[in-house]
Every structure is written in C-alpha cells, then in structure tokens.
C-alpha cells in the first residue's frame, strides 16, 4: 500500500533548490536508504517526507502518521526511558505498546534510567523504541547509525527489519550505508544536483 508519494517536489534554501524536482513513492513495509555527501539535502528530504517542511514546488501525500527522528533524539532527557517511551506512544493512543518496544530494543534493564544519562548508542535505541511503539506509517531516521559500534549496528539492522515487517515504510539517511544496503529495498542517492534511485 502506498504510504508516501512525492511528485516533483523541490525545497529551496535562500532561493536555491536543494535538489532537482524529485518523484518518490514509498510502500508500506519497505526500507529505503538515502545517501549523499554533506549538504546534499538528506535531512531536508527526510523532514519534507515527514511533513515537517512544506515543499517549495510539487506535491506530498502521506497516509497515516509520519515520524522524523534525528539520531538519538525524540525523548525528554529528564524522564526515565520507560516514561518517555510510554509518553510518546500515548500521544498516538499506543501506550500499551511501550513495554514491547522496550523489549524489542533490549532496553528492559535501562528502562528506569533517565534518558539524559544514557550513552549515545543507548539513546539511539531508546529513540527507536519510542518510534517503534508509535508504529508510524512512515518512519524517517536521520543518521541513526552515527553513534553505534558494530554490534549495535547489527542490532539496529535487525530492529529495522522487524519494523519493516510490521508494515512501516522506512526512509533512512546515513553516511554509513554498508550495513543497511544488503537489507534495503531501494537506495536514493542525492548530490551533485542529481537524484538517483537504485
């Protein structure tokens, strides 16, 4: 089922289009990796896909909740992991999904810790747990791999596959695509004024 459709979208910063007109259609249960050098517009594309930015030209259609998560962000630092994840899930009426999301991300032992005291890798997992608990139709992850070691990266890939299997469309921007590309359904390459879909 179609979750996101971008038709001829551009976004201009200071009068200059970040990329040429872009068409993109994402189905539920797919993983698309977005790559490109710094400044190529990966973050802009993800924020636009999530509905946080309005396209300068073109059209965006999205069915269901779209969630944008930057790195390890998305949870209030003063709260415990358990409360923060449950609080976010409650915003979309899914508070009961929080314990399962904590289990999926292996966060049971950290559930009582304050988000602000977690390591960078643990915060990524906590942010992902909150996103998983919300079960969005579209999940845009901006550099979720930056703070992860090899083992954590492998865990992340497993979690993303589980999220995809649950029907969520994933759009993941990363500078370290090697771990994700083997399981990705598509790769979108931004840069040099061009957009390529592989």
């Amino acid at each position, binding site marked *: 089922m179609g979750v996101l459709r971008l038709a001829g979208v551009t976004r201009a910063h200071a009068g200059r289009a970040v990329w040429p007109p872009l068409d993109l259609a994402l189905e539920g249960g797919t993983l698309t990796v977005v790559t490109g050098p710094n400044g190529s517009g990966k973050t802009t594309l993800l*924020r636009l896909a*999530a*509905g*946080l*930015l*309005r396209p300068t030209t073109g059209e965006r259609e999205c069915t269901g*909740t*779209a*969630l*944008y*998560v*930057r*790195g390890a*962000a*998305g*949870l*209030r*630092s*003063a*709260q*415990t992991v358990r*409360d923060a994840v449950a*609080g*976010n899930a*409650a*915003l*979309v*009426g899914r508070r009961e999904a929080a314990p399962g999301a904590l289990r999926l991300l292996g966060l049971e032992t950290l559930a009582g810790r*304050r988000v602000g005291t977690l390591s960078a890798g643990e915060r990524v997992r906590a942010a992902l747990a*909150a*996103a998983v608990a*919300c079960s*969005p139709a579209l999940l845009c992850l901006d550099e979720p791999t930056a703070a992860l070691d090899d083992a954590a990266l492998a865990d992340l890939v497993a979690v993303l596959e589980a999220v995809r299997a649950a029907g969520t469309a994933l759009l993941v921007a990363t500078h370290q695509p090697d771990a994700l590309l083997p399981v990705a359904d598509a790769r979108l390459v931004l840069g040099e004024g061009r957009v390529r879909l592989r």
Partner: protein
Amino acid sequence: MSGQAGSQVIAVFRRELAVERAGREALVTTVPFVAAFVVLAGLALGPDPARLAAAAPGTAWLAVLVATVPLARTVAGAEVADDTWDALRGLVPPGALFAGKLLWAWSALALTWLLAQGLVVVLFDVRPAPQSIYGGAAGTLALAALTTGLGVLTASGPRRRGLLAALVLPAGLPALLAGTQLAAEQTAVLPWAVLATLYAAVVVTAVWAVFPALLEE
C-alpha cells in the same frame, strides 16, 4: 473535537505533567521567583498597611506576568533543547498540540497566580475580593495562550528567545490590568470582567488560528 483529538490533548497534557514531575523545571524556576518577587516588593513598599493593601493586587499580578517568561520556555524551548520538538509535531496535529500545551500552561499559571495571591494575603495582610477568582481564571487563560504562542514562536534560536520578554510582557498588559482591578476591593467589576473575558477569548482564538503557521519552518 473528535474523541481521538481529545485523547491526544489529554496525552500531551499528561506528558507535560510527567516531564515536569521528572525535571521540576517550571517548579524550580517559578516558585522561588514568585516568592522572592512578592517578598522584595513588600520590603520595598515598607510597613505602611494602607500602602501594602493598595499595592497587593498589582504585586501579585505583576509576579504572575513576569513569571510567564521563564514558563514560556517549557512550552517549546525545552523541547527544542531536548530535540523532541520534531517528534511531537509529527505525532500530534497542531490543534491538539496547541490545546494540550495551553492546558499545561494554564494549569501552571493558575497555580502561580494562587501562590502569588496567597503570598500577598499572608505578607501584605489583605483580603482579596471574591471576583479576583474570575480575574485569575480568565487572566491566566489569556497569559497561557500568549505563553503557548510566543513560546513556540521564539523557541528556535537564541536571538528569538531573547525577544520573549519583550513580546510577552507588553502583550500581557490587559490581563495585568483586568486581573489587578478585579482583585482590588473597590472597583466596578463589570467592565474589568468584560475586558478579562474578551481578552482571553481574543488571545486564545488568535493563537489557535496562527498556531499551525507557527509550527512551520
């Protein structure tokens, strides 16, 4: 309001309460500030009971108005600092987000007003007029809407945050005037009650109308 939107409003409000319970940011910024403000105002005015009685309603409301500035930071500035604002905007539609944040700010400001009123009653030895309760409810509702709108407007960037006080304090003047007059013993109640009501209605409606635009980048 649909059932889902209503439950999202409650969820936003409960999330604010949970964050406050965990971090106590509003508590530790507001309570000492209001207490110091009222005590220092009393010391500055001197021991004359008549002077204290005359100044009491204005002192309490001025404390509430000035306390809206740090409180406004908890609406969106703290979310931006924690990098949670994007997730919140993605999960909750603008109308429900506004209503939930408004409910939180109103609760916090109403408690602030109660604290300030209680302090002037004790320290200035005055008895507030009964209609001051209406002034407190309407005035803090208007200030809560202002706090919510301007808190979001000024959340991104230190230059914008610097403008917060310059925007909130003048814009809150009608609430200060109406609330002060309604708390005074010998005042014509109706005109000030009408002002408090109209001001609250206008501010809540205006901020609700522009809130979706405030959320856009």
